[in-house]
Every structure is written in C-alpha cells, then in structure tokens.
C-alpha cells in the first residue's frame, strides 16, 4: 500500500465518521440523504464488480435490489427479525445471481445488456401478478421499527453504511487481488484472458454474484427502512440505469470511482429536485446526456472526451 492509498483510505474514514455523526445533528432530511448515499454506494460498488471490472454492461441491478426487498419484506412479515431477514435476502440474492449468471454471462455486449434488463422486467411482472404472495400491485407493508423516527433513521443510516462498507471491503479485496487482475483482463480481451489461463466463466460469475449479493442486501434494508414496497418502486428501470451512470461518472473499474460518482450524482439530483419539481425527469435526463458526452472516463480520469472531438468517428 502506498502513501496515496493510505491518504484515500483516510479520507474515506473521515467521510464515514461524518456520516456516523449526522443523526446527532437531528436533521431528518440530512439523515435521509446520507442513508440514500450509503444505499446507492452499496449498489454502485456492487455494479462495479460486473460492469466496471469485468466490463459486462449489466442492467440487472434493480432485479437483485427488488428481489432482496421482497424476500426481506416477506420474511419480516412472517415474524423473522430484521437483520436475519436481511441476511436471508442476501443469501437468496447471491443464489439467484449465481444461477442466473451461469446462463446469461454466456452472452456478451448488447445481448447481455438486454438479457439483464429482461430480468428486471420478468421479476417485476412476477411480483405484480403473484398477488397471494407479494400483494401484487398493492404492494407489501413491512413492520416498522419501534422507537420513533429519529431512532429508526439512525438505525437505517448505520445499516446502509455497514452494507456499503462491506461492499467497499469486498471491492478492496477484488481490486488488489488476482480476481481484479483477471477481471480487468477479461474486460480488455476475454479470449486472451482464457488463453492466458484465466477461468473467465468462473471469474465473471463471481463478479456477477458479488453484485447480486450486495444489491439484494441493500434492497432488504430498503424495504425495512421505507416500510412499504411495490413492484414499480423496487424493480425500477430508472434505478437500474442510474446506478451505472453514477459509477461511470466517478470512474468504472476503480476503487473509489463509484463512491465519488454517487455523491456527485445525488448532490446534483437533490439540487434539481428542490428547484425543478415538474422538470425533474427532463433535467435528470439532461445530466445523463451531458455526462455521456463530457465525462466518458469519469471524474477520476478527466481528459478531453474523444467522442466530442471526433464527432463520433473512432
């Protein structure tokens, strides 16, 4: 570890301490905001495994998130305590992504992207139509945490933070180790990666499972936090698209890129939300468009965007 590595880690530590202190200030809005930042950080770090390091454009984030949310909510509704329900949701999401990954990771590029979107849609439809179990379009209520809104706010902030930190630890392990090296090789040239002795199928599956695992856990915590979920809210196409954008904003395939991207994006989004309520979608869309043109490498790798200079030619 270099000095720069320690410095960045230190900065992160400061940020985490800051977040831990927020509930003390008593500002509910700030607590909510930080909880969102932590939650999206977990999802962004999760996406980063498969979309960043491995280079597979996954839009399945919402599928895992929603799955975790529903599993967590259902378990809690049947009397399982909150944290064990989250752990169960984590295991189910991991299992699901492992199984699905074995199938769709055979696809590449556009077809993989489309397959991953289809996952979101299929799960959403299942949640909508399986009324007996999931409540269908009416959604599911989840038992609220006793102790009052202030206390609950703090618990969920700390929980999301913990999930995000676990995801970060996993990213650290991947980034510095063989898996990360191998995934980078796969991203740059999968055939050569296989040739050089990398079990590409296994590495991709691990990355995909890691992404499913953390998204699912965040989803379960989300369900407990907001105490009410429905299919469109959890299996949300906008979410599944925002997360990769956040990661790309900060720098995909890097350790801190996802975190930077999440913070910048959410700050931007909050600013707009308060100023342009009716135009919220349009302005968000404009941000995304601008992002694509001006920051193709992310904020961590600022350089003049080739796409803009050459007008689309390679």
């Amino acid at each position: 570890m270099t000095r720069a590595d320690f410095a960045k880690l230190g900065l992160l530590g400061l940020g985490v301490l800051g977040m831990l202190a927020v509930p003390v200030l008593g500002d509910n809005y700030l607590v909510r905001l930080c909880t969102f930042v932590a939650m999206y950080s977990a999802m962004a770090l999760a996406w980063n495994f498969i979309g960043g390091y491995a280079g597979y454009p996954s839009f399945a984030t919402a599928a895992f998130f929603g799955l975790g949310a529903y599993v967590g909510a259902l378990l809690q509704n049947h009397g399982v305590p909150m944290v064990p329900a989250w752990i169960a949701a984590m295991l189910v999401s991991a299992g699901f992504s492992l199984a699905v990954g074995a199938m769709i990771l055979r696809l590449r590029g556009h077809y993989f992207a489309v397959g991953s979107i289809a996952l979101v849609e299929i799960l959403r439809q299942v949640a909508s139509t399986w009324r007996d179990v999931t409540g269908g379009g009416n959604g599911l209520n989840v038992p609220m945490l006793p102790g009052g809104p202030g206390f609950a706010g703090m618990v969920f902030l700390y929980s999301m933070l913990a999930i995000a930190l676990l995801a970060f630890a996993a990213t650290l392990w991947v980034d510095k180790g063989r898996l990360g090296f191998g995934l980078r090789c796969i991203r740059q040239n999968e055939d050569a990666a296989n040739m050089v002795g990398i079990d590409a199928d296994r590495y991709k599956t691990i990355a995909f499972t890691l992404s499913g695992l953390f998204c699912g856990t965040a989803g379960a915590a989300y369900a407990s936090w907001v105490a009410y979920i429905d299919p469109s809210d959890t299996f949300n196409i906008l979410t599944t698209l925002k997360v990769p954008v956040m990661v790309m904003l900060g720098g995909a395939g890097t350790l801190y890129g996802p975190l930077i991207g999440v913070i910048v994006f959410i700050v931007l989004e909050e600013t707009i939300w308060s100023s342009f309520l009716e135009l919220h979608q349009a302005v968000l869309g404009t941000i995304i468009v601008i992002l694509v043109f001006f920051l193709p490498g992310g904020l961590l790798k600022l350089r003049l965007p080739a796409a803009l200079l050459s007008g689309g030619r390679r």
Partner: protein
Amino acid sequence: MDMQTLINGLVLGGLYACIAVGFSLVWGVLNVINMMHGSFIVLGAYLAYYVFAIAGIHPFFAVPLVGGLLFAGGYLLQRGVINRVVDQPVLITLVLTFGLDMILYNAMVLGFSATPRRVALDMGVLEFGTMVLPVDRIAAMALALLLTGLLYFLLRSSRVGRAIVAVRMDREAAALMGIRVEHIYAVTFGLGAFMAGAAGCLIAIVYPFSPAMTGLFLGKAFVVCVVGGLGSVPGALVGGLVLGIIESYSGAWLGPQHAITVGFVLMILLLLTRPTGLMGKVGYE
C-alpha cells in the same frame, strides 16, 4: 375459441411487427438500442390525436404527416446528437438514449398531461360465425402490415434502402464504395422514428394511450427483436407474429396478466439458445 385466439394473436402480431420494425432497423444498422422508441410511438399517437381533433383527419390518413414529422425529428436528432456515440459500447449508447427519453417523456407529460386518450371512432365489427373481429383492429393490422411491407420494398429496391442494407452488412466497405454513412445512419434513424410514429397513429384508434405506456411499447419492441432477429423486416414480422400469437394464447390459457411475463420469458429463452433470433443471421455484439 381457438380460431378467435389465433386471429386475435395475428392482429396483435401485425401491430407488434409495426411497433418493432423501426427499433429493429436502428439496432441492426446503427448498433444503437434506442430507448426513445416507445416514446416516439406515444408521440405519434398524440400527434394523430391532435390532428384528428383539429382537422378531423382520420389517424390512418395522418400517417404520412405524423410519420414525416417524426422522420424529420429523428433525422436531426441522430445527426446532431446520437451520431457522436454510434461507435461506443452499448452501455453508453443505451444510457444516452435513455437520458434523451427522460427529456422527451417529461415534455410529453407536461405538454399532453397524463390522462389517457383515444381516438374514438367506432368502425363496427365483422362477424364470421362465432368470431368477432372489430373492424378498427383489423384495419390497423392491415395497415401495419402494409407499412411494414412498404419498408421492406424500400430496403430492397430503392437506392437509399440498399445503402442502408450495405451499411448494416459492412460499414467500412460501404464507406469505401462512396456511401455517406452518416447520412444513411440519420436516414435509418429517421425511418425508425417514422415507423414508430405510424405505429402510434394505428394505436391511437385501437387502444387508449398515455405517456405511461412508453415502457410497454419499448418492451414489446425488445422482445420482437430478440425473437425475430435484428435489422430485418422479415425478422420483425416473424417476431411480431410469434409474440402476438403466444401472448394471445397465454392470455387465453393463463390469464391476461401473465401475457407480458410470457413474452419476456420467451425473450430470455431465445437469448440463451439462439440470440440472433428466429430469422437473424449475424448478431451484433
């Protein structure tokens, strides 16, 4: 009952083919997944609605006008914005068109409001024995098939059409032969928008529509493309008919609410077994 289900499926299928063919062309030729396609369709439906409300023109006859407007818009959009990312990986192109779609969607909600509309023209029904065939749907399907057929002939016989096919097969070779690839890209995108607008005109009569339905149409287009194959009219046709028939039968056997799930499951099955679709040749990565 079986015949009725089959006919319903074919009618639906014809519409699906028309909905998807523009999307398929853009994906196949430009290698761009256009997330705005559903919104183009809804926009076409709204334009047809207002043309009818203001000038009394039947949506079927509004197709050239509405389609033309969308063609122009699509051409400019592609040339000005989308062309810049045509070479980029799917993550970037999909995210870009999604962002643009958010803008368009917002504009439609603000401009047209979210209440569902429909051009209510009672065109009566045809009855064959036990089967009931609403004329508006049959006419819409016929027109959908006609437009799809016209597109097919355009691609096969006209200079522009053949240039599009050439670019689809090998962009660099086409450029070397003197084809202005950027112009062709924009024309293709414009054609995709035209077909979407035309589909919108047809839908305006048949179903109530609102901005909230953009995702539904886009989803159908996705499934049809994967099932039928990219970038070809026959592919969209086969995919559309297959989807329509399968949905119709699923609706009859399992209940209408499951029809959509079945469509997506079908898509995943095909992605895993035959990603290039029932008719497709070389797929795009």
